[in-house]
């Protein structure tokens, strides 16, 4: 029932006042009051409806139903009025802009004169070279200094471009006074650099600094500017993605998804621009994992390890991959778990079979392999399938023996079903 209530179609019908079935209505209301993500989804859908209504994009039956909801929901009515007023303002501004010759068209007519254009081009090139050269040297110094501050413990879970590996500390205390002084100097120099030469490099360097200081909104603002000014720089997009990712980790549930979505967009863009940028490949995998896209995250980590198999970052990638594989077992259907277990058992792949058993035994749910085996045994006995019954019994004994020898655990051998089953089976067979 859950997923269908969360579908866009159902939400739209609900917002148009077309859901009259009490069970569905209560189901939606229940989600609205308990599920933050669903509430955000409904808010977004309502805003979409309001925009579509104002922009005349609803067909007549939808528009009529929407109008009817306005009579009882003055909050929505106010939002419609606000959107209509915004639309009028936007259209009137557009008319004014079109009527007035723009600064750019005046500039274009100036450059139609070749002598001005040539001289200006030479001056511009010289100025750009000088500015980029000096600001890059300064920024590189400051970033190198910043990297050295974080060579023992890295400041973010994600990889910032060109930062070497350092473990992620569980707890971060306030830096000591010497480090604080260094950080203050770096910050002042980077702010100065932006004020004197506002370009992609200076904004990027300041953004990275703010990212390391956990000032995520400020970091995003600087890094967005950098990424706009140098739209093809993969590293800038990677670092912007990092800022969004770290913001997501610090955000409440309803905002987390939005920031993670931004982060994934930026990491993806970075990998599109440079398929070998390890930082972005690593971060993209992290974002997918955090978003719960297990299969995509698994693929992404595997691809990362194909490009980097030996660095300390690769060790973290392997740990994440292992965690995903464990989670996959936890979230799989009962019958899939049993099928995998039996496949391993039949192939005498004891290690794999016991791994599956170990991963599910603590759950004490129907997914537990011994429980499923005992059910399988009973079904096989009832239907007269002796081969399957025997196999189930032997597999249960295999688990029981393992638990007894490895963990001194007799629970599985004395599993309520095993002993009578064994007795029953041996009396019939032998």
């Amino acid at each position: 029932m859950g997923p269908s209530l969360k579908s866009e179609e159902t939400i739209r019908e609900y917002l148009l006042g077309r859901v009259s079935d009490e069970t569905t209505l209560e189901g939606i209301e229940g989600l609205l009051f308990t599920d933050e993500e669903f509430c955000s989804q409904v808010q977004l859908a309502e805003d979409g409806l309001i925009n579509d209504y104002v922009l005349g994009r609803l067909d007549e039956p939808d528009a009529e139903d929407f109008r009817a909801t306005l009579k009882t929901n003055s909050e929505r009515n106010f939002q419609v009025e606000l959107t209509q007023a915004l639309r009028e303002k936007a259209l009137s501004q557009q008319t004014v802009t079109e009527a007035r010759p723009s600064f750019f068209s005046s500039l274009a007519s100036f450059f139609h004169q070749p002598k001005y254009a040539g001289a200006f081009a030479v001056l511009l090139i010289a100025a750009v070279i000088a500015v980029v050269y000096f600001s890059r040297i300064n920024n590189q110094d400051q970033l190198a200094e910043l990297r050295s501050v974080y060579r023992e413990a890295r400041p973010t879970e994600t990889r910032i471009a060109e930062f070497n590996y350092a473990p992620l500390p569980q707890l971060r205390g306030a830096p000591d006074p010497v480090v604080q002084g260094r950080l203050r100097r770096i910050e002042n120099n980077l702010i100065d650099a932006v004020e004197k030469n506002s370009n992609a490099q200076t904004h990027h360097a300041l953004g990275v600094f703010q990212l390391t200081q956990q000032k995520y909104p400020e970091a995003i603002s600087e890094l967005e500017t950098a990424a706009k000014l140098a739209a093809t720089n993969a590293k800038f997009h990677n670092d912007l993605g990092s800022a969004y990712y770290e913001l997501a980790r610090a955000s409440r549930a309803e905002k987390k998804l939005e920031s993670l979505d931004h982060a994934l967009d930026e990491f993806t863009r970075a990998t599109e621009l440079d398929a070998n940028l390890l930082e972005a490949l690593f971060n993209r995998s992290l974002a997918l994992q955090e978003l719960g896209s297990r299969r995509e995250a698994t693929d992404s980590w595997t691809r990362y390890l194909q490009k980097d198999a030996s660095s300390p970052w690769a060790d973290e990638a392997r740990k994440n991959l292992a965690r995903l594989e464990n989670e996959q077992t936890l979230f799989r259907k009962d019958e899939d778990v049993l099928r995998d277990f039996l496949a391993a058992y039949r192939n005498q792949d004891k290690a794999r079979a016991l791994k599956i058993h170990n991963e599910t035994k603590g759950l004490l749910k129907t997914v537990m392999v011994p429980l499923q085996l005992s059910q399988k045994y009973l079904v096989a006995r009832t239907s007269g399938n002796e081969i399957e019954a025997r196999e189930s019994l032997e597999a249960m004994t295999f688990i029981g023996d393992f638990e007894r020898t490895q963990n001194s655990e007799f629970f599985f051998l004395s599993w309520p079903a095993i002993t009578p089953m064994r007795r029953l089976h041996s009396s019939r067979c032998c």
Partner: protein
Amino acid sequence: MFLFICRELEYSVAELPLTRLPVLNLFKAKVNKEVTPESFATFLSWLGPDPESAGEEYERLRFRLCNFFGQRHCRFADELADETINRVILKVSEEPIGNKLAYFYGVAKNVYRESLRKERTHLDIDEVTVAAPAPEEQSFSSECLDKCLAKLAPESRSLLLDYFSEARHAKVELHRRISESLQMTQTALRMRVMRTKQKLKICVQKCMS
């Protein structure tokens, strides 16, 4: 009264982005209790650790409640939402409540049932539906809109105006272009537009009140 409450709590209006505070109507509950600055303060700290998060939480609650009553075709969804909030304010100051949203949902259902009974009583007596005249809504102030648009960050302002600028047929293409130029997905763009509009709404409501 609102200013008085804010002074008492050492908050400024700007710090507390609550748009319509039901307590300001000096609501009196069935048991003749009144919302006091103290109970209001308790309610705020229960909603969120600081004024900003309490304000955000309040907006989402109101959205939930208005939809709850609106989709159940209640005549004055807003007032019922306010009534629900008022009852919770009074309760919060008396005893601890664990699950906020579940509690709000429960109170909303009670308020809804009571509103149905009231409507039925009206019909029994008069045999006609005589709705009270709807409270007069203030007409939208474009002056406030201008002021609030000016307060937005320049990029947010131009994003909103760009988003609503083109003719109907060009809208889809325009939104695709904006999302490409800002290098974000169209869903992320819709979210950003929605959040900016929410900010604007709060500002305009405050200005109009």
